[in-house]
């Protein structure tokens, strides 16, 4: 499997994970270790930013191979997001930020207007910005243009476990993106993760499906394998399916060449 490079940092694992919804810190720690994940997102709102060193959750994440990716979950607009990112940079000593702006508290859908504005502002402030966004090819190109280090389109509503409902748009995004495309949200089963990787996604971010499994450690391992399998298949080159359904034309189109 080719390593993934984002903003100059190399990842051997293409499975990114989250820290929400686990039954306990210990269980989270075990699951994240089983996942092999090297990038783990943490909601800034969950951390004691004043005493990050003593923070209980962060205590479970102190491994040399795990990079923390603070996220701005809970903010409602660009202004709050920029403020949150600055807090995160100070508390966690990283300039990486997963930008999530969802003004609606129910479906947690990203606000594309505020996200674009915040991405531009944070890039100017020196952040490595990974925005969570709709599977909208145009907004993904706009985010790339203002300097996003990757784009994180959603597969289906966050926490829904529904898989790649946006697949037609994800394919377009992957086809035209110059930055890594990380499918975020909605991946509910290892087969979904493998499917995203087969499409050519650079990585997937999985949280709920691991955290709420009856056996998070086993599930994390299953996702680890699925992501590798999907990526290896992509690199090997799929193509044995006849998508086009074309046979030869009933009457030859090129007989004029022999006349």
């Amino acid at each position, binding site marked *: 499997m080719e390593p993934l490079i984002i903003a100059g940092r190399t990842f051997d694992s293409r499975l990114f994970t989250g820290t929400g919804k686990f039954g306990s810190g210990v269980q989270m720690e075990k699951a994240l270790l089983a996942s092999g994940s090297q990038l783990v997102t943490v909601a800034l709102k969950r951390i004691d930013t004043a005493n990050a060193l003593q923070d209980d959750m962060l205590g479970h994440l102190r491994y040399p191979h795990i990079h923390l990716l603070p996220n701005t979950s809970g903010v409602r607009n660009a202004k709050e997001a920029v403020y949150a990112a600055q807090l995160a940079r100070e508390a966690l000593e990283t300039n990486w930020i997963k930008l999530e702006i969802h003004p609606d508290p129910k479906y947690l859908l990203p606000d594309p207007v505020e996200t674009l504005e915040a991405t531009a502002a944070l890039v100017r402030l020196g952040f490595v910005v990974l925005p969570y966004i709709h599977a909208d090819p145009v907004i993904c190109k706009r985010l790339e243009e203002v300097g996003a280090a990757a784009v994180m389109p959603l597969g289906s509503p966050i926490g829904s476990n529904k898989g790649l409902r946006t697949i037609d748009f994800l394919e377009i995004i992957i086809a035209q993106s110059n930055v890594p495309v990380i499918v975020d949200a909605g991946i509910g089963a290892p087969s979904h993760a493998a499917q995203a990787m087969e499409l050519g996604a650079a990585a997937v971010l999985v949280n709920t499906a691991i955290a709420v499994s009856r056996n998070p450690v086993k599930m994390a391992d299953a996702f680890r394998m699925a992501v590798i399998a999907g990526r290896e298949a992509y690199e090997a080159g799929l*193509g044995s399916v006849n*998508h086009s359904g*074309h*046979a*030869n034309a009933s009457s030859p*189109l*090129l007989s*004029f*060449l022999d006349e």
Partner: protein
Amino acid sequence: MSFENIFRQYQWDDVKQRIYAKTALDVEAALRNKHRSLDDFMALISPAAIPYLEQMAAISQQLTQQRFGKTIQLYVPLYLSNECQNICTYCGFSYDNPIRRKTLSGTEILEEILAIRRMGYEHVLLVTGEANQTVGMDYFKKVFPLIRQHFAQISMEVQPMETEDYAALIPLGLHTVLVYQETYHEEDYRKHHPKGKKSKFSYRLETPDRLGAAGIHKIGLGVLIGLEDWRTDSFFTALHLDYLQRTYWQTKYSISFPRLRPFSGGLTPKVEMKDRELVQLICAYRLFNEDIDLSLSTRESEKFRDHLVQLGITTMSAGSKTNPGGYAVDAQSLEQFEISDERAPDEIAAMIRRQGYEPVWKDWSVFQGS
């Protein structure tokens, strides 16, 4: 970041070797794929794909109809000038070719415009040589307002210019710029362009980047087929296209396939491309890229053009004159190259209709920004 960074990562001989090493299995895999990669494109233009041509044509036809419907857009070139400071070994306007030079005045342009409008055209392609003193930005700024009044869409095939020049012409009505690299074989490029501004390979190579940065609506790419191995040159064209689409994603693109035509005192092609191979290339482009405009000019024969209407082509010229003043002012002056299909536009339109296709004369409006 510009295309040159990507271009420098490829070696001509290595690419050529990879194309000619493609096998029937590679072609079959490329035919099956839903999204075809540059590697698939290599297989589709390789000699190994020749036995699959009928199948490629069927797919190309289907994809083109799905994306464009049964339509062919029509345009005509308007040669404004044959003055040129460049020496190009294959071109009738070459500086060292002793022909009478002419640049149309405002009055003469109007005469030409009226003749072209009588043929039914709404889309016009302005063509010049490279003579920056007489046919530079001052000239274009002067003639664009005149031309724009009469046409829905203006394209241009002139010397490469700066980003700010393109940006200045877009509000005056510039929609499309065609800039062919001629060949991506750098050494050969230098051989064929020994003198003039055009001798600068990199400056030409980066022209589409400048166009993209200026926010142009459409960019036309291509190579002059006959200068070098067409397969290798076409791969580099596809590589260029792929880069541009990712980078200047709001711009549309077109590809042309000019085969070297005779002109007075001209060059014999080093490499000859057969009709069958041109069909292969056109279908390969369509299979690689469903959205791209594919354009076929009057360089090609009547019979060939008639059959290509249904195989992937989306744009055609007709009744073209390749000399400044050729439509009304000075029909006898020397042309850039000899055209092959000399039928009038209404004959071409009738030929298109007979095949169940619609000739489209107008597909743009002033409200669309230029």
